[in-house]
């Protein structure tokens, strides 16, 4: 009985997640992007926690907490610092203009849903219907990485993808085994750390984070 409410809320959060991904696609300003990323993380954490509570999968609490700490607090804060330090918070002109990107995004979502349908049939979890959304989030994040021509947005796209994956894990299988989750989280953290080193190096070598400076290595 109560499950259905939770379920509806989870679905709502899932929809929110998808919405945020679209918002990220259309967001030009880096700061805005980071905020959206934080919100996405929050939605993810909430849904995970909810699932954990409603299904009694306790290890999901840990991953929810991890998400909260890493993706809602630590990383956004960190990125804000980076942006401030390197003051690169200028408009990001995407490679493909926003409306087109949106259209492609919608196509991707439909595609993802179709793809996920046969699978979620098989799923025994209450949250199976959200698998399609997870996949959609992943693909949208991918799309965003393609369209953005600055370093930081690309990284945020990368992390958004990670969010999608986490969401897929929770929604399809109530999360991966804990050790894996931890490992993944660790990797993500290190990854971000490494990336931030890059930001500074790139910045000091090309004095901008614009990727168009990084097209030297090519076949003449």
């Amino acid at each position, binding site marked *: 009985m109560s499950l259905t409410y939770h379920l509806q809320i989870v679905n709502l959060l899932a929809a929110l997640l998808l919405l945020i991904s679209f918002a990220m696609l259309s967001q030009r300003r880096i700061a805005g992007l980071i905020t959206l990323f934080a919100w996405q993380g929050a939605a993810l954490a909430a849904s995970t926690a909810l699932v954990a509570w409603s299904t009694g999968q306790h290890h999901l609490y840990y991953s929810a907490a991890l998400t909260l700490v890493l993706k809602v607090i630590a990383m956004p804060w960190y990125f804000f610092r980076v942006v401030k330090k390197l003051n690169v918070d200028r408009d990001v002109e995407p*490679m493909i203009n926003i409306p087109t990107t949106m259209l492609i995004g919608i196509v991707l979502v439909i*595609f993802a849903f179709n*793809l996920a349908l*046969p699978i979620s049939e098989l799923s025994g979890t209450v949250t199976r219907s959200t698998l399609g959304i997870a996949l959609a989030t992943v693909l949208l994040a*991918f*799309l965003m*990485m*393609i*369209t953005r*021509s600055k370093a930081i947005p*690309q990284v945020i796209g990368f992390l958004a993808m990670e969010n999608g994956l986490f969401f897929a894990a929770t929604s399809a299988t109530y999360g991966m085994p804990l050790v894996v989750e931890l490992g993944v989280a660790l990797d993500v953290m290190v990854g971000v750390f490494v990336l931030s080193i890059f930001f500074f190096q790139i910045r000091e070598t090309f004095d901008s984070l614009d*990727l168009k400076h*990084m*097209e*030297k*290595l*090519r*076949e*003449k």
Partner: protein
Amino acid sequence: MTNGLSSYFTDPVQWAWAGVLFWLTLGFAALLLQQVPQLLSRLVFPLGALGALFIAGVGVAGLLLPASAVVLPIGLPDLPFHLRLDALSAFFMVLLGGAAFGITVYASGYFKSMAAGPLALLALWYHLFLGGMVTVLLANDAYAFMVAWEVMALSSYFLVTTDHKVPEIRRAGFLYLLIAHVGAISLLLTFGVLQGGHGDYTFDTMRLAEMTPFWASAAYLLALFGFGAKAGMVPLHVWLPEAHPAAPSPVSALMSGVMLKTAIYGLLRVTFDLLNIQIGWWGTLALALGLVTALYGVIFAAVQSDMKRLLAWSSIENIGILLAAFGLTLIFTTDGKGALAALTLTALLYHALNHAFFKGLLFVGTGSVLHATGVRHMGHMGGLMRFMPWTAWLTLIGALAIAGLPPLNGFVSEWLLLQAFLQTPGLTQPYLNMVIPVAAATVALAAALAAYVMVKFFGVIFLGQPRDPALHEAHEAGWPERLGMLWLAAGCVLLGLFPAQVISWLAPVVSLLTEQSLVNDGNWLMLAPVSAERASYAPLIFFAVVAAVLLLTFVWVRRVYHGRVRRSDPWDCGYPEHDARMQDSAEGFGQPIRQIFEVFMRVERETPDPFSRSPHYHGASLDKAWFIFYAPIARVANWLSEQAGRLQHGRIQWYLIYSFATLIFLLVFTTR
């Protein structure tokens, strides 16, 4: 199949393998001997020559004894080296050993002056080369064969590039190795077709495998391509005139004289031994290719002015003749004319043997000339007969032999081949009856042109006046060189004088491949392959009569004639002062041929203007095949690689799109 370790060195195949090992150890010993140069230069090559003699002996034993096989404990886990010595391998081992002995004896003198380091490396590759060739002949499974085959190619590549300072030589070596490698891959595919599946690559299983005509043809074509690339079959010949001249002369001799024959061996092995069906058109194809190759080769030989390049082209011609004989053999076998097949095959083997000797002789001859003069261009030679008589007379024997003149060996094999052509009436496919006469005519034409080429070769180099004052200092070759040349020349003469014996030795090979054997219907001094009424040739009588008449005339002239001789300037139609530049140059001698056959060539000419103070003439006849077949391939490859290059243009977004597109495509692909 013995294990090999338990009972070693008991039958011919193991002796042969021992010979190979001896060569290998010798090669690596040479590396160690760098510190003691005099030992290196005095010891290694003579020992190698002994090894060659031994191999030839083993070959003879293999011809007499039944086939023997052994499995070595090396190779792939499921596929150790299988070696087998049957009559065919044995014959080619005799060829190899016989020619290699003379050439290596020659080499022992030729390389004396080399510095220790390069000499050691050269000795290593040289003996690896020899060992590789013998292993090719012994191999009884695809892996051993390919390994030996490529070792042969690789070592000869390093031999070709001995003098790698010269860019042309590097280019030649590169072209050689490239075409050899492509050929090798096509051989791999051949064996891929022949193999029984699930990784059984021994020739024994291949012999048993039943093939559909389609796959058999595929295997045959691939083999023809692969071996043709090694043999220098037109249009795969382009590497040969580059690589053979580039190598040091003894190596050129080995490559032209022996290595090309391994390709012929492989062709015979695959077509007649491994494939258990043959199809008529195979023969026609080989015949056609062979004739084209023969004619093409000899025509280009006629217009060369670099002596070694000329010889290389003439090797192409001879390969063409061998291919034609091969094709004819196939035609006869598929047509059920066993006896004729035997005759043709005999001609083929005989010619292979002959070519090994006279081409080896000619190449080492050019080696001595090269040492004496330091140039390869015939435009700087002439009159060398007076400064290096040994080389000249011995080379003359080779030249006459390769020109197919009686009573030397070249004539015997051509005679046999022409006989085979004459026996053709009654083939079932009528179109063949049309083809054969034309083929015979082409062979005859090629032979006649060969005479032209050889007159040019010998005349321009050794006769006439020296075209270069430096030639007066030209020195005769040393004794080892002379001995080597003597051996080869003796081979040319003896093979010419005793064909009946040689043919009886070839009998086991012939009966192995075409369940027929050639009976010599004549006595020991007369060769009558079919029957005495149909055709016979007795070189000994021939030789005896010529010699007798010659002697008689000589004596008679001495008797009736006072014998007063005056020396004076040449008369030359009373033309007062004439110098060396008035003789025909090499180009001049080839000019008529070039005029007649210009269609095959891309001719470059820069003629001097009549009033220039220092008139300069340059003419070159380039191989059109290069521009027809190879240049387009290169262009296409370049274009493709440009297109491929466009994919890699550095924008990470694009790279991401590749991954994205791949993902989407695969998802659609798998879930539809």
